[in-house]
Structure formats: structure tokens, C-alpha cells
């Protein structure tokens, strides 16, 4: 019953449902997307009107009874028919006018979102990997303010941010529907996009171009925060990982060094500069793991570390055979990576 009403709601009140869908782009929250959204609504309403009009025309044309003589076989007598040209003489010019207006609107919307206003101080260098997002933050290119994170982007509300898009392997597409349309990440070139959130909140994004086995599990989250909170987040991300406080976690850091560090970086932990997997320096500050696949909770972390291939078959994360003692220690350590 609840399902049935859900279906009815989704079908009949899809605009409402769009409000409830975290990735619906019929309601958006950023200057980089809003002009597209208005255009989308405009063209959608026009399209629905055209469909309704032609469907009605076909239906009326079929059911409207036309009397007339029948031939020997009982079929309406063949005739040259009345003049049908008025349909074309009115319909085609009207179509052309609507078309030109749509094209005009399109070009205005394009101009509005083609590039960010001014010269944004913050640039995100995003590199696509099979199947996660590497994110490097830059502030006017100052090296001391640069840091690397993964799969979760934070933005200051109301400020445009430039996004530079590259890929480490195949083609991906960067897409946070509530904030902007897609831009592809293509080998051999750097594409530029921009984001601006006008409302604090958490926005889901997902890879928009088929990129192989785990394309379905290549999501990311964008957290738009007030400027103050954003500043403190940035400062925290710049810091190094703290030395573990407990013996268990300390043991865990050794397990990490021997088993994980070849692929993962934890800034501040010796011997851990691996670039194959996400930077884990502040892992616990992120909401999800495995590129938006699982919530970042201890149980999921344990499952992911011990058998990633069951959760995301084909991912770069190998299945590690750890003793339960090693696993517990490792969990204690990664949970200390705030």
C-alpha cells in the first residue's frame, strides 16, 4: 500500500518528488546550475504541451466520426480527401517560432553558466580514478595551503569555486546535479568546470560516464558550509595526522605501514606516501567510504578492510587476510584519523 502510494506520488507529483530526490536537478541550489534548471523546466513544460497537443490531435482525428459512403467491400470510399495543408502551414511555422525561442533561451542559459563570475580564489584539482575521486585543494596556488583528500568536497556557501578535471585512467564525468551539469574527465586534456552552492547542505554526486566494472559505485559528496565552518575544515585538513594515543592504535599504525601504506597516504605517518588509493589522513572527517558506497562507521570499515571485493568487486582495494587482532588494531588506528 505504501509502495503503491509511493508510485502514484512519483508519477503524478514528480515535481514534488524532485524536491525529495537528492540527485534530482529539477530543483538546484547553486548559481552554476540554476539557469539550467529554469531552462529545463521551460523546455519540459513546452515539450509536455506539444505531446499533449499532438496526442489530442491524433485521438480526436481517430474518434471523431466522419460519415460518408462505403464501397462494396464496406470500406469508406476512397477519396482525394479534404485539404490537409492548413495543418502544415500553421503547425510548421509555429514549431519554428517555438524552436527559435528555445534556442535563444538556451544560449542565454549557456552564457550564464559557461564560466564562473570573477576569478575564484579556490581551485579544486580533481583526478578521476577507477573508481574514486582524488581531490586537491588550492588557494591561489599557494603550496602551504594545498592539501589532498578524496570523495568528499567541502565548499563555502555563496562563493564560486573553480574545478580542474583530469583522469588517471579512463574517461569519467564529474557530476553533482544539484550544483552543476556534467563535465568529462578525459585522458590527455584538462577540463574546467565550476561550482557554487547558494545553500548549506550535503549534495550527492556520481560519475556520469560509464567507466568500467564499478561505475555504479563512484559517488562523491559535496558539503556546502558557511564560510567560517569551511575555514576551520580547511585548517583541519591541512594538519598532519596525530600520533596514536593508545597502544592498540599504535600497533594498528604499524599494521597500516606494512599492509596499507603502499597504496594509501596518511600525512604524518612515516612510510606512507602511496598514491594508488585515497589519502586517508583525515578519513574519519568524511561521511562515507569506498567513494560513497558505505557509511563511514566502524562496522562498515571492518567489512571494507577485510573483504572489499565482496562489496565492490573489481575495485583496487585487495582482500586483506588479517588476523582479528590485526584488524581490531587497524580499526582503532584508522578511527583515530580524525
Amino acid at each position: 500500500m505504501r509502495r503503491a502510494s509511493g508510485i502514484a506520488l512519483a508519477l503524478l507529483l514528480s515535481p514534488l518528488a524532485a524536491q525529495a530526490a537528492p540527485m534530482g536537478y529539477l530543483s538546484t541550489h547553486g548559481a552554476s546550475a540554476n539557469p539550467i534548471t529554469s531552462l529545463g523546466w521551460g523546455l519540459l513544460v513546452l515539450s509536455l504541451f506539444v505531446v499533449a497537443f499532438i496526442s489530442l490531435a491524433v485521438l480526436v482525428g481517430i474518434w471523431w466520426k466522419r460519415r460518408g459512403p462505403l464501397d462494396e467491400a464496406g470500406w469508406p470510399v476512397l477519396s482525394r480527401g479534404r485539404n490537409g495543408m492548413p495543418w502544415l502551414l500553421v503547425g510548421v511555422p509555429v514549431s519554428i517560432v517555438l524552436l527559435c525561442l528555445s534556442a535563444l533561451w538556451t544560449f542565454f542559459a549557456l552564457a550564464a553558466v559557461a564560466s564562473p563570475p570573477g576569478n575564484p580564489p579556490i581551485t579544486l584539482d580533481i583526478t578521476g580514478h577507477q573508481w574514486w575521486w582524488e581531490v586537491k585543494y588550492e588557494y591561489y596556488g599557494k603550496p602551504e595551503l594545498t592539501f589532498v583528500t578524496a570523495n568528499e568536497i567541502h565548499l563555502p556557501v555563496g562563493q564560486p569555486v573553480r574545478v580542474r578535471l583530469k583522469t588517471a585512467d579512463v574517461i569519467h564525468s564529474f557530476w553533482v546535479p544539484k550544483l552543476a551539469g556534467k563535465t568529462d574527465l578525459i585522458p590527455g586534456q584538462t577540463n574546467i568546470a565550476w561550482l557554487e552552492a547558494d545553500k548549506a547542505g550535503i549534495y550527492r554526486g556520481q560519475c556520469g560516464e560509464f567507466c568500467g566494472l564499478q561505475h555504479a559505485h563512484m559517488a562523491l559528496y559535496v558539503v556546502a558550509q558557511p564560510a567560517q565552518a569551511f575555514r576551520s575544515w580547511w585548517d583541519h585538513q591541512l594538519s598532519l595526522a596525530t600520533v596514536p594515543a593508545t597502544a592498540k592504535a599504535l600497533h594498528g599504525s604499524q599494521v597500516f605501514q606494512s599492509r596499507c601504506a603502499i597504496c594509501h597516504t596518511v600525512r604524518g605517518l612515516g612510510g606512507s606516501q602511496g598514491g594508488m588509493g585515497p589519502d586517508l589522513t583525515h578519513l574519519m572527517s568524511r561521511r562515507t567510504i569506498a567513494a560513497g558506497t558505505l557509511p563511514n562507521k566502524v562496522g562498515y570499515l571492518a567489512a571494507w578492510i577485510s573483504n572489499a571485493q565482496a562489496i565492490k568487486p573489481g575495485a583496487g582495494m585487495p582482500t586483506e587476510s588479517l588476523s582479528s587482532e590485526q584488524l581490531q588494531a587497524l580499526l582503532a588506528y584508522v578511527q583515530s584519523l580524525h
Partner: protein
Amino acid sequence: MAETSSSTFRDPVVAEPTPELLHKLESMWSDAPGLIGWFSTVDHKRIGKRYLVTAFIFLLVGGLEALAMRLQLAQPNGHILGPKMYNEFFSMHGMTMIFLYALPILSGFSNFVWPLVLGTRDMAFPRLNMFTYWTFTLAGIFLYMGFWTGHGTDVGWFNYVPLSEHAYNPGWNIDIYALGMIFLGISTTAGAINFIATMFRTRAPGMSISRLPIMIWGTLVANIGILFAVPAVSLDFLLLWFDRRFGTDFFNAATGGRPLLWQHLFWIFGHPWVYAIVLPAMSIVSQALPVYCRRPLVANSAVILATILTMVLGFGVWVHHMFATGLPVIAMGFFSAASFAIVIPSAVSVFAWVATIWTGRPVFTTAFKFFAAEIVLFVIGGVSGFMTAAIPLDWQLTDTYFVVGHIHYVLIGINVFPVIGGIYHWFPKMTGRLMSEKLGWWNFWLMFIGINVGFFPMHISGLLGMPRRIYTYPAGLGWGDLNLVTTIGAFIFALGALLFVVNVVRSLLAGRKAPANPWDADSLEWATASPPPSYNFGVIPSVGSIHPLWEERLQSDDGRTILHEGLVLDHHHEIPATTPLDGEADVILKQPGSSFAPLVVALLIAGIFVGLLLGMWWVAGGCALALIPGLLYWFWPSAESGWAVEA
């Protein structure tokens, strides 16, 4: 009599068809019985039916793949198919439907109907015709070779590099896809050449270009487009195979290649291809819808011009598949405008069809229902395409389920619906039996409800942000219920398709016997028996108007068609050739009869591709060398086929 078959010139006899003549023609044109005839026939009617059956089998296979995917996606976190298998399923589904169903089914119609509509006895190149069927079938088997053994292509029918390069996909699967597509391209191109030569050279006398039935135009324009579009994709796949097999650098960004070169070549082909697989189907509607409206098509000439304009514009819009790749905005603006402009010729066709229904007096046959439904589905698929032409909006829409909904309305709405309607329309001509209208009612409504319940919600799930080509999705994104509805719709549609198969089989066995012209239609195929004799027409008709069988009743102010007497042409497989524009007889052609050469040559070409795939160069080279005697055997001059032979 002064005539002999080796003479260079003749004044051909004009007469009424006598029983003796028909008997003589039957003995000349009919195939040998049994398997020998089956493998060596060049009869366009048999080839056409074979094309239809084969393409329909591919439709069913592709449909089953789709149903498996729909089960997987019916709920969030589905796990019926693993990621590898799901990716193979959606790739094979796309490849099958787009390449092995959509065009071949139309080739089937055109093969069967063209010579009949054109009032002649065969295509311009009968053996080439059979060759295209064999190569199509062999290429289809080739493309499916890997699927059954877990090596199906799994990076989508669009096959983007570098995902399809050796570094990311080292298995057989992409090699099979790449070589199979080149192989299939040979078939498609050969077919296009045949249709073009047939249209320009082998029509009945009197069928000037202005008297050409509209159905011919759609297929002609599509095949001219194919001539220029297919080389792009064949080349694309060849370069990819070179990259994979020999380590060339066409698409490798690290050594001077560019991944976007793949996309340019692919979509230079891909977009015209969409028109190649809908324009012939639209012209089926333009041809047959008016029959059931009991009047000629409104604005026939405008619809022909619109058909041509669509194809021409179709070559200028490929970049709208690449709006998100970071191309310069100015360049994209041009392609966006061109994409918008395609709406204009589409509007011409739609308004012409609607006007035909309004100003006619429709007869509600099953075929009519499919054609009328096509108009609505065409408009839905059209406006959603129009939305994706808007560059910034496309940045949101592209690669979401909105586009999946769009292409299914286009391909099912403008291809499958006219095809099923076309089968109901021409089935009596093909088999001599009528299909059941009662089953047809159920067939139509299940399919019509199925497509709308199945594919309309896809637009909404797309607008709610659901990406394409994901094998699973989490709950909580608002996609679950919509996907359940889609799955239910897909199964309703499949039930409709099943009912269609039941109707075909039942009607074949026990359908009512069909008269020559059960629908009182206008074109020449209805002037001969159902099913037509092997020679199609006892004497070649002389065409006087665009509606040969209606012209008297419509009091056409064009000429009058003569059916009761005509060119006899009974010296061997003879047909008249006519001038391209005026349709005046100017040569008596001697057409080849049944032959094993097409099958042999097709098998040798298949051998080349198998050799290339396996890296067994001696197999490929051996088959290529064997092609030389094979082709010499095919083309060897004989007096029967109109060559001079000196004593």
C-alpha cells in the same frame, strides 16, 4: 524471330500474360527445391523474409537481455546479475538492437517490398543481395561468439576509449566487437549500394522520380546516408583494433593520440545511423497509414523533402553527443542549433500524418493502430531529443535515464511500432494469409501500454538524477519505485511481443487466405498475387501515376498505369532498366540466377575475420587469397548474364 539471347539489341515484345508465358517464367525464376535452393537462392522475396526472421530473432535475444537487466534494477541494491554480467548484458543489448535488429529488419522489408513496389522482378544485384544476408548473419554470429563463453563486450555499444583499449580490457571481448562491426559494415554497405542502384536503375517503365512511392524515398535516403556514415565507424573500430593488436597510438593520449578521436568518428557515424534506422520506418508509416485513412498522404512532396533534409542535417549534429567533453562553446553552439533545426523536418512529417488522419476516414485495423501510435511515440521521443539539444541542459540530461527513455521512445516508437504495423500490413503479401485482428488488438494494446508504463518513468528517474549504465543503485535516492514501474512495463511490453510471435505462427498455419489486395492499397505490390509468384509480374507494368491502383478512383490528373499488358522479357532472368529520373526503359538487363558464390564469398570473409581475431595470420591470408578465385567465379562472364562470348 530475329531475337536471340546473344544479340546486342532487341525490340522487346509487349503482350498480355498468357498461361504459357507464366509457366515459362515460373520455370525460369523458381529456385531448385530443397537445401540447394535454400542456400543458392537469390530471390529477393526469400531474402527479405529471411532478413525479417533473423533480425526478429536478434530482437528477441536483445529483449531477453533487457528483461534480465530490468529484474536487476527493479529494486535498489539488486544482485541478480553481478557487475561484469550486467555490463555485458547492457552492451550486448545495445549492440544487438542497434546493429543486428534495427537496420536488418528494415532491410528485410525493403528487400521484400522494393522490387514489387517498383513493378519489377528483382533487385539490381541479386547475388549481392544474398551476400548481404549471409554476411549479416555471419557477422551476427561472430559478434555473439564471445557472449556465450563469458567474453561478451562489456563497455557499451559506444565502446569509448581508453576503457576499450588493451590496457583496461585485455580480453577477446573488444576484439570480437571491433572485428565483428567491421564485418557487419561490409554487409550494410553492400546492401546500401544495392538499394541505391536498384532505385536509380531498375524501376518499371513510366515510374518517373515524381511517381516514386514514398516508402522508397525513406530507404533510399537512409542508404545514401549509410554510404557515408558506416565508413566512419568501420574505420574507428579498425583503428581501435590496430591499437589493441599492434600497439599503434591512435587513441593513446600519452603518445600523441586522442581519446576524443574515437568519439568524433563514432558519432559522425552514430547520429546519421539513428536516421538510417528510423527514416525507412517512418516511410513505412507514410506509405501505409494513408491506405487505412482511405486517401493519399497529405503533403507527399513536403514529407519527401523533410526526409532528405533530416538525413543531411543528421551529418551535422554529431557533437551534440559530446557536449560534456569540454569542447569550445562556440563550436557547440553551431551543433546545438543544427540539432534544434532537425525538429523542423520532423514537424513536417508529424503534421502531414495528423492531417492525413483528420482529412481521411480511418479504418481501425491493427496496422493502423500501430501507425497512429507511432505518431504519438515519435513526438515524445522527438521532444525529449529536442531537450538534449540545449547544451547546458544536456550537461544535466546526458548519461541519465532521461536519455535512456528518449532512445527507447525513438527506437521502439519509430522503429519497432512501424515494423510491427508493417508486418500486419504486408504479412498477407508475404505469406498469402491474413494475421488475426483479434490477437492483433491484444498485441497492440499490450505493447502500447507496455512502452508507456516501461519507458515514460525513465524520463522521471533521469530527471531525478539516475545515471545510465549502473548495475545497481542505493535506496533513498527516489529511484526505486520508478524502476519497479519500469520493470513492470518492460514485462507487459514483452508479453505484447510474445503475443505478436504467437499471432505470426498461428496465422502462418491457419490464417485466413489473403486476396491479392486485402487492404485496397495503392502501390504495385498489391497488383500481383499473395504471395507473389517467383517472377513477381507476368508482364512488366507500365506506371502512370504515384498511386497505380487508386488512380482511376481518385481521378488522378497524372497518367494511367497499364497492368494487363506489358514487356514480356522471357529470354532468361530479364528485367528492364530505366533512366534514373524519367523512368523510361533503356536497357534489357539479364540478371543472374541462383548461385552459391555469395555464400562462398561470405564464408571466406568470415574466415578472414576469424583468422584476424585469433591472430592466425595464415588463416586470414589464405581466405583472402581464396577470395580471388571466389570473386572471379562470382563475376565470371556468361552469355546468360548479358556478356558477349566469342566462339
